[in-house]
C-alpha cells in the first residue's frame, strides 16, 4: 500500500505562494485586457511576495529537515536566504515595474514594423512579472534543496526564466538578445557539468541526498575518483552561478546586455540563492571531504577577488564595472565558504543581504541616468553628475562606498564579519588577499565617485530622469538599509547569527 508522502505545507508555503502567484500572473497575462494588465501584474506580484514573506515570518522558527520528505531542509540559513530573496524580489519588482525598460513584445524583430507599432500602441507585454516570480520560486528552492534532483530542478527553475528576462530589453535589443544567448548557452553548459557531477556523486555514494553523501564520505575516507570528480563538476555549476573566476565570463556581458532592472534583481537574488546552495553543499554535503576541495576553492576565492578588482579598473561601462565588482564580491563570500564555521555562515548571510540591497539600489540608479536613446552606461558620460543631480550622485556614491567597504556602510560590516570568520578559521592568507584586493577595488569605486563629483565639465546630453515613485521607494529602501546596517549592524547581524545553522 502506497502512502502519500507527508508534506509540511506551512513550511513550504512561501515557495508555493510564489509559484501560485506566478501562475496567476500567467493567467492575467492571457486574459486581462491590455490597459489593466501592467498594474494588476504589479499588484499581484507585490501581494504574492508580501504574503510569502509574511508566511515565512510566521514559520521562521520552525526548522525541519523533513518538510518534503528528504528533499528540502528548511532551516535557519534557508529561511534567512528565502527572506532575503523575497525582499530582493520585492525591491526588484518595484524597479521592474517601470516598463520603459522592456521590449513591448519580445518576439518582434528588432527594428521591425511590428516592434514600432507595438511601441506606438502601447501594447506592452508584461510577462516579466510572472517570469520574475518563477525565478524567485527557483531561487527560494535552491538554497533549501538537499538532494541532487531538487537542486538541479531548482537551479533550472531559477535559471530558465532569467535567460528569457535577460533578453527583454527595449533598447539595444541585439545586445540584450546576445546576452540572453550567452547566458543561456553557458548556463546550460554549466548545468550539464552540475548534473554530471551529481551523477558521479550518486555513483560514489549511492544516494542522491547530501546526507547520504556525507555518510558515504565518512565511511570511505573520501578519495574516490567519483567523489573528487563529482565534487569538482558539481562545484562548476555552483561557481558559475555565483560568478567565480574562471566561470565568470558571462557576468560582464550579461549584466551589460540585460535590462538594468533585471540586472539588479539577478545580481542580488541569484547570488543569494546560489550562495545559499553552495554553502549548504559545502557545509553539509562535502564537509567531510574538505581536505580535498578547500585549497582549490580558496584559490578560486583569491583569484576571483583579485581578478574582479583588477579587471574592473579598466571598464568604461558602468554596468560591466558593477559586474566585475560583483565578481570581486563573490570572491569575498567564497572566503566564507571555505572558512566552514558558524561565524562565516552568519557573516555570509549578512553580506548577501547588504550586498544585494546595495546592488539593487545601484542598478536602480543606473536606470535613472539617461539620454534620448535610453540609459547611459558609458562611465565617461557620468562625469559631473554630482553637479547636475547631487542627490542621485550622492546616493550612488553611498552604494559605491558600501561596495568598497568603507566604514559606516553595510558593506564594511559584511566584509569585517567575513574576514574575521576567515581569520578565526585560520585562513589568514585569505584575509590578507581579501584586504589587498579591497585596496585595489577601492580605487575604481573612488575614481567613479571622483568623476561624479570632481571632474571638470558636465555632460550636457545626459540627464537624470525623475524616478517613478516605485523606483524611488526601492532606491530609498536600499540606501536607508545600507546606512542603517552600517551604523547599527546589530539589527541584522543578531538575526543572522540566530539563523546561521543548517539542519541535516
Amino acid at each position, binding site marked *: 500500500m502506497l502512502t502519500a508522502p507527508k508534506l509540511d505545507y506551512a513550511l513550504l508555503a512561501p515557495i508555493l505562494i510564489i509559484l501560485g502567484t506566478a501562475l496567476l500572473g500567467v493567467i492575467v497575462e492571457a486574459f486581462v485586457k491590455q490597459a489593466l494588465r501592467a498594474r494588476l501584474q504589479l499588484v499581484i506580484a507585490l501581494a504574492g511576495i508580501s504574503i510569502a514573506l509574511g508566511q515565512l515570518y510566521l514559520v521562521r522558527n520552525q526548522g525541519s529537515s523533513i518538510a518534503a520528505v528528504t528533499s528540502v531542509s528548511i532551516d535557519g540559513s534557508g529561511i534567512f536566504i528565502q527572506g532575503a530573496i523575497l525582499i530582493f524580489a520585492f525591491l526588484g519588482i518595484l524597479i521592474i515595474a517601470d516598463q520603459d525598460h522592456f521590449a513591448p513584445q519580445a518576439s518582434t524583430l528588432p527594428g521591425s514594423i511590428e516592434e514600432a507599432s507595438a511601441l506606438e500602441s502601447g501594447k506592452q507585454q508584461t510577462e516579466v512579472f510572472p517570469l520574475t516570480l518563477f525565478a524567485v520560486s527557483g531561487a527560494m528552492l535552491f538554497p533549501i534543496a538537499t538532494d541532487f534532483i531538487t537542486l538541479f530542478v531548482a537551479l533550472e527553475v531559477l535559471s530558465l526564466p532569467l535567460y528569457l528576462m535577460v533578453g527583454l530589453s527595449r533598447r539595444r535589443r541585439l545586445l540584450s538578445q546576445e546576452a540572453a544567448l550567452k547566458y543561456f548557452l553557458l548556463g546550460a553548459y554549466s548545468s550539464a557539468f552540475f548534473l554530471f557531477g551529481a551523477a558521479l556523486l550518486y555513483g560514489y555514494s549511492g544516494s542522491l541526498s547530501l546526507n547520504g553523501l556525507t555518510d558515504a564520505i565518512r565511511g570511505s575516507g573520501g578519495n574516490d575518483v567519483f567523489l573528487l570528480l563529482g565534487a569538482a563538476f558539481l562545484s562548476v555549476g555552483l561557481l558559475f552561478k555565483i560568478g567565480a573566476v*574562471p566561470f565568470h565570463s558571462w557576468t560582464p556581458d550579461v549584466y551589460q546586455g540585460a535590462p538594468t532592472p533585471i540586472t539588479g534583481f539577478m545580481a542580488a537574488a541569484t547570488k543569494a540563492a546560489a550562495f545559499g546552495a553552495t554553502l549548504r553543499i559545502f557545509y553539509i554535503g562535502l564537509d567531510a571531504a574538505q581536505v580535498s576541495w578547500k585549497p582549490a576553492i580558496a584559490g578560486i576565492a583569491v583569484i576571483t577577488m583579485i581578478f574582479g578588482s583588477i579587471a574592473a579598473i579598466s571598464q568604461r561601462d558602468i554596468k560591466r564595472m558593477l559586474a566585475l565588482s560583483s565578481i570581486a564580491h563573490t570572491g569575498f563570500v567564497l572566503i566564507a565558504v571555505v572558512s566552514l564555521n558558524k561565524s562565516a555562515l552568519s557573516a555570509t548571510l549578512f553580506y548577501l543581504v547588504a550586498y544585494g540591497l546595495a546592488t539593487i539600489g545601484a542598478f536602480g540608479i543606473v536606470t535613472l541616468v539617461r539620454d534620448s536613446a535610453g540609459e547611459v552606461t558609458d562611465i565617461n558620460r557620468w562625469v559631473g553628475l554630482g553637479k547636475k543631480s547631487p542627490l542621485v550622485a550622492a546616493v550612488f556614491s553611498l552604494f559605491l562606498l558600501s561596495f568598497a567597504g568603507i566604514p559606516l556602510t553595510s558593506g564594511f560590516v559584511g566584509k569585517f564579519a567575513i574576514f574575521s570568520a576567515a581569520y578565526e578559521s585560520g585562513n589568514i592568507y585569505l584575509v590578507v588577499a581579501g584586504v589587498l584586493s579591497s585596496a585595489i577595488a577601492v580605487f575604481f569605486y573612488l575614481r567613479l565617485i571622483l568623476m561624479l563629483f570632481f571632474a571638470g565639465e558636465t555632460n550636457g546630453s545626459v540627464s537624470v530622469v525623475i524616478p517613478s515613485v516605485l523606483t524611488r521607494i526601492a532606491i530609498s529602501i536600499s540606501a536607508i538599509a545600507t546606512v542603517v546596517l552600517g551604523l547599527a549592524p546589530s539589527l541584522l547581524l543578531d538575526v543572522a547569527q540566530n539563523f546561521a545553522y543548517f539542519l541535516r
Partner: protein
Amino acid sequence: MTTSTNLVYLIALPLFSAALLLLLGRIADKWGHIFATLISGSVFVIGVAEFFAMQDRDGEARAATQKVFEWISVGTFQVDASLLLDQLSICFVLLISGVGTLIHIYSIAYMSHDHDRRRFFAYLNLFIAAMLLLVLGDSYLNLYVGWEGVGLASYLLIGFWNQKPEYATAAKKAFVANRVGDLGLSLAIMIAFTQFGTVTFAGVKEGASGASAGALTAIGAMLLLAAAGKSAQFPLQSWLGDAMAGPTPVSALIHAATMVTAGVYLITRSNFIFDASPTAQLMVVTVGAITLLFGALIGTAKDDIKKALAASTMSQIGYMILATGLGPVGYAFAIMHLLTHGFFKAGMFLGAGSVMHGMSDEVNMRRYGAIGKVMPITAATFGLGYLAILGVPPFAGFYSKDKIIETAFNAGGIEGILLGGATLLGAAITAFYMTRVIVLTFTGTKRWDENAHPHESPLLMWAPMAILAIGSVTSGFLLNSGSALVNWLQPVVNERHEHHAEEFLPPLVVSTMALVVVAIGIAFAILKYRTVSVIAPTDVSIFTKAARKDLYQDSFNEAVLMRPGQKLTAGLVTTDYKVIDGLVRSVGWIIQTTSSALRSIQNGYVRSYALIMVLGVLTLVTAIWMVTL
C-alpha cells in the same frame, strides 16, 4: 647660596617692554625709544644694586638664586626656570645692561631718522632680555633659551633693513651659522643629561669628577662648537663680517661687546668640564689661536670700517677663548679681557657709527681721511679705544691682553711657545690693522666727496662714546688692581691657587716683547699708509687678496657645504618624485596594465568563454586531485 626674588625682573622688564613695543605698533612710535631706554637703565640700576648687595655678602652666600617656576618636569628630566646670579654672571649683567643702556642712548640719536625706530628699540630690549637670561640661567637648558634668544635678536637686528636682499641674506647666514653652534650646545646638554641626570650647572659640576674622560671631552667639544658658533670662532666665524649689515649700535652691542662673547661665558661657566678634560682644552686653545690670527689677518685688508672692526672682534675673542683653554688661571683673564674689550670695542664701534653718521653712511675707509679734524670728540674716544686694544699701558688692554699672552707662554713646553707666539704675533697684527684704521680714517688727507659734510655727532651720541672711552682707559687698571677680578671670580672658576710649574717668562719681559711687536706693527702701518688711494689697489699680494676674501672661508663653505647641499636637495626632490612616488605610481600602472590585459580576454565569443570554463574545470579537477593525493 642666597635666595633672591628680584632676579626675574632683570629679564622680565626688558622682555615685556619689547613685547609691548612690538604689540602696540605705531601707537608707541613717539615714546618707544625713551621707554626702552628707561627700561634698560632700570635693569642696569637693578644690576648695580645686586652687585652691591652681593658685595655685602660673604663667600658662599654671594651667589643668589631664584626659582621662578617649574618649567619642564618629565621623569628625571627636571628643569626649573631658575636664575643664578653669581660673581661671574654679575660681571655680564653689568656689562650688558651698562653698555646696553649707553647704546640705547646713542641709538636715540643715531636712529632718529629711521621710520622704524620703535621696532629697533624693541629688538634691542629683546636682545637684552635674552642675553641676561643667557648669563643668568642656572642650567644649560635655561642658558640655551637665552642662547637662541640672542641669536633671534641678532637675526632681527642684522636684518633690520631687510628690504635690502644682501642684508636679509646676512641675517639668515648669521642665524644658520649660529644654529650649527646650537647643535653643539644641544648635544652637549643631551650628553650631560645622559651622564649626570641633570642639566643644572651645579649638578653637572658635582658629577663631572666622576665622569669618563671620553664623555667630558665630548661635552667639551660640543660646548666649544657652540661657543664657536656664537662667538664667531673658527670654523664658524664667517657670519660676523656680514653681520655688520645691522645698524652700527647693534654691531657695537651685540657683535662686539656682548653676544659674541657668550662663547667665552659658556666655556668659563663650564670650567668644571674643561678643567677635567685636557683634550677639550687643547681644542679650545687651538680654536682660539687660529681665530685670533685669522681675524687679525682679515682685519688687515678690510676697507669697510665696520668689517675691519668685526675682524678685530673675532680676533680679540680668539684671545679670550684661548685664555679659557688655559685652565683655571685663564678664565679670569679671559673675562677681564672680555670686559675691557666690551668697553673699547663698543666705543670704537660707536665711533665708527658716528663717522658713518657724519659721512652719510659711507663705510669705506678709503673715502675717509682727516676726519679727526672735523670730528674731534669721535677721534679722541676712538683713539683711546685704539690705545686700549693695542695694549699700551696703562690703557685697559694692557692689563687684560698682556695677561693672556703671559699665561699662554706659561702653558709650558712647545704648546706654550706656540700659543705665546701666536698671541704675540696677533698683537703685532692687531697693532698694524688698528693703526691702519686710524690712519685711513682720522689722519692723512681727506678723500671724501664734495657732497659729504662730515660733522661731529650730537651729545646723545658722543656722551656714550665718552663714557665708554673712560672705561677703555680705566677698566683694566681697576679690574687688575689687587687682582680684583681674579679674586672675585675665584669661587666660580675654582682656581685652586696652585703655583704653576714655573713662569716661562717674567711678566716684565712679556710686556716688553708685546710693546715691541706692537710698535713694529704701528710703524709698519704708518709707513705703508702714507698715501692712500680711494680705489682699493688690485695689484696686491696674495695674502691681501686672501684676507680680503676672508681667507676664503666663504668660498670654502660654498664649495664644500652649500653647493653639495643644493645638489643634494635638488637630487632628493627629483628622487622623491621619480623614485618614491614613481614606485607608487608604477604599482598603479602595473595594475592598470593588467586590467587592460584582462579586459582583452573578455573577447565576446561564447566559445572562448566556454573554453575558459573547460580549462577552469580541468584546473579545478587537477587541483583537487593533487591536494588529495
